[in-house]
């Protein structure tokens, strides 16, 4: 461990020397950060080092956050187009499952940490950030309130042609929210395999089924 830390410190020092002629540039700091990241983490449980690899969307959005500047339109559209291509539509054409199981998934914040068993079921983490039903008062506020989600969007029959647009939009949001908003903070639930198709259908039902408590 000590050896590893020393190597990291040496590489930081070398990079700093290289940048020493003038004050280090932002690109120099990016390079040092990448070195520090490589030397600072270790795989544990199911949390492998591969998780440190950023795709374009994460790399570009993180850089924009560091700069304190939103992405330019062209870059944002490029990210959205790439993420839209990842959408997998339900194989049987049915978008809604069981809202009761959707509620259970929405309540659970478990899964995919190094202390979770790899084979255990993942939760959807929904209530951590969103209000959904009136009954659950312990909800987070990082995302917008989803209370009356379907009702406010005029969904009375989710299977009707009139509801099709809202239903498909919601599927995309759950599968990969970056398809519509390049730097959305919302996890890419389907794309990253947090929930499977059947579970996403259940969460869809929680949001869109008129019988769901979310729409009461």
């Amino acid at each position, binding site marked *: 461990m000590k050896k590893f830390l020393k190597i990291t410190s040496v590489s*930081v020092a070398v990079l*700093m020397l290289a940048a020493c002629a003038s004050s280090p540039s932002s690109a120099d700091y990016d390079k040092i950060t990448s070195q520090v990241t490589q030397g600072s983490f270790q795989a544990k449980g199911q*949390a492998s080092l591969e998780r440190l690899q950023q795709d374009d969307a*994460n790399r570009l959005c993180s850089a924009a956050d560091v700069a304190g500047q939103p992405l330019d339109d062209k870059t944002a559209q490029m990210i959205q187009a790439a993420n839209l291509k990842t959408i997998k539509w339900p194989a049987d054409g049915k978008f809604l499952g069981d809202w009761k199981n959707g509620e259970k998934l929405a309540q659970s914040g478990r899964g*995919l940490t190094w202390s979770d068993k790899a084979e255990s079921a993942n939760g959807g983490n929904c209530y951590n950030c969103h209000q959904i039903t009136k009954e659950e008062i312990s909800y987070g506020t*990082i995302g917008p309130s989803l209370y009356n989600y379907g009702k406010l969007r005029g969904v009375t029959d989710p299977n009707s042609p009139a509801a099709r647009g809202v239903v498909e939009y919601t599927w995309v949001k759950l599968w990969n929210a970056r398809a519509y908003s390049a730097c959305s903070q919302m996890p890419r639930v389907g794309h990253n395999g947090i929930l499977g198709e059947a579970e996403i259908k259940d969460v869809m039902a929680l949001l869109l089924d008129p019988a769901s408590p979310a729409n009461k």
Partner: protein
Amino acid sequence: MKKSMVQRQVLAAAALLVGMGAALAQDATATGIAQYREMLQDGNPAELFEMKGEKLWTQNRGPKNATLEKCDFGKGPGVLKGAFVELPRYFADTGRVQDLESRLITCMETLQGYKAEDLYKAAANYGKGESANMVAITTYVVTASKGMDFALPQGNEKEKTMYEVGKRLFFARSGPHDFACSTCHGVDGQRIRLQELPNLTKNPGDGVGFAAWPAYRVSNGQLWTMQKRLNDCYRQQRFPEPKFGSDATIALAVYMGVNSKSAESIVPAIKR
């Protein structure tokens, strides 16, 4: 004795929370938590860690059978008051920016003759064996700066670099959930469930965020240092594990510590 008093107070606070109507529950919860913290102030079990740390500080230990009394945390050998609120900082003797916990390992190596490698290994097994001693000593050292304001130095080029690296790590989205530190701690006034989240991109106020650690956590009976706090943040972010004392953890502490300039440290704090 102290602990049973704490437990009774926790029960009283819990009863207070349960008794409230649902409509008022959210505001009331915040008030309830504040009251609960106030009640706990008199019997913060962190004092037990501090007392143990004080004893270890003056105890002859290690292969050299020496004490830590000459350990230099940046204000000179043996000077503890005000040291914590200026850490992490650059140390010329190691050529590194170090936080309190990695600096303690340096002192245990140079003064007491322990092998740093063994101590890093022990530290990874948090709260057990020699880690329990290091946590206690850390608590003792931080408590000497209780009530003081954060004032991390940024005069050295390496300190500036660590701030810039910490900033980049703070916003780095990755893993299966695309989480970064900033997902939860990037803006004001947000919550996860009912837990309020400090905005760590700026000074979130006295005794909030960086200025509220190390802290005793009632929910698991552990004293959590900043290294442990960051370790568990990364666990919840679904990242791989940050190594104890790694440059990433120190860079993040520099970023948060510099942002907390002039915030009062309430160490050792008490948390749910």
